[in-house]
């Protein structure tokens, strides 16, 4: 019998970047603090980082949504 299939990372196609890890940390902290709407999440990211990789570091509702759409695709 071949080895059994046990792959812990089936959704991810590559290693996450350090920026993605920081972004994940920050979003989780935002959720933990009770944030549920987009404006509050964007404000939270601008307050605590990480900076947006474009737009001179500033997150907007538009670029945050674009980032999430890209990273979830």
């Amino acid at each position, binding site marked *: 019998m071949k080895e059994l299939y046990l792959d812990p990372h089936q959704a*991810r196609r590559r290693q996450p970047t350090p920026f*993605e890890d920081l972004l*994940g940390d920050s979003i989780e902290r935002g959720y933990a603090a009770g944030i*549920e709407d*987009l404006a509050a999440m964007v404000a939270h990211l601008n307050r605590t980082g990480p900076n947006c990789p474009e737009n001179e570091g500033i997150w907007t509702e538009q670029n945050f949504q674009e980032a*999430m*759409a890209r*990273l979830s695709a």
Partner: protein
Amino acid sequence: MRTSPNDPVDAVLAEGLKNLWYPICPSEFVGERPVSLRRLGRKFVFWRDQTTGKLHALEDHCPHRGAPLSMGIALGDRIACGYHGVQVRADGVVTSVPGSPGCKLEGAKATRSFHVTEAAGAIFLYNSSENVDTPPPLVLPEELTNDQEYSSFLCYTEWGGDYRYVIDNVMDPMHGTFLHKQSHSMAEGDATATFGVRETDTGFVFEKEGQRGVNFDWTEWADTGIHWMRLAIPYPKTGGPGGSFTIIGSYTPIVPNVAAVFHWRVRKLVPGWQRDTWRFLYRNRLEARHWAVLEQDRVVLELMEPDANQREILYQHDMGIVRLRRHVRKLAQAQLDEQEEKAA
């Protein structure tokens, strides 16, 4: 799991009930090159048509002398056996016997053929007891078909235990409080609970009385032409809005004491930033946490002696298991009766 000797019902269940859809593997396991997979008491060959991308499945057994068709060459909707070149079409008909043109094998439906389809990232096969022209539709729970309300990821694993132990494990919500106490989502819930059974249109729900949304509090079993299970676990706040985390499970025997384990991890989130953010977090970190929980199950299950089911002393928490076992035994008995009738 030890199958009781001389128990034909058990023997049917060991290989999986017939005339049901079963998940086979993630979609990406099969490309244009034939792939051989053991499942459900036989060996199948799967491949995709180079031109149409259509998925095909035959028994992986050449009708000439039994060489694996998977060692042959796929030619669109046919496979040319690597041993003597006999060509078998996806419907099981031999289209050419190069070594003996015009022999009676040509044109014969000599190989078992199976209907396959794809949904929710997986390949499903209709495990018909004999060749059928048209299978019943594959009916999956709405979590896997309603893309406007739900989003999911498939987690596929192969475990060294009988698929019926995997089902027992899912039909046993109480283990969440104990086995998964050290986990990101199941630290809550009473260590004692009374369970009840509630009928549904397609099966039943086994649930804790007076406790919902605290831990792993209920399990549903359903038969919609495929056997599947559903459960929900409260998500920690860090997972964001969207409520509980739902798991849809379906389990397929590979060989005795090896199971193909399918878990779709689902959240109810309409398209938009919240869904995208959950999908990002899932890839980035949640998948690893869910994996750690699932590993707790696998380790126990694989360490159970195959004959554990012969020496059990069950109590109230195990009512769901008892009920489900009784139900599937009845289904297996009905298949045996039908076989006997046909033979008579």
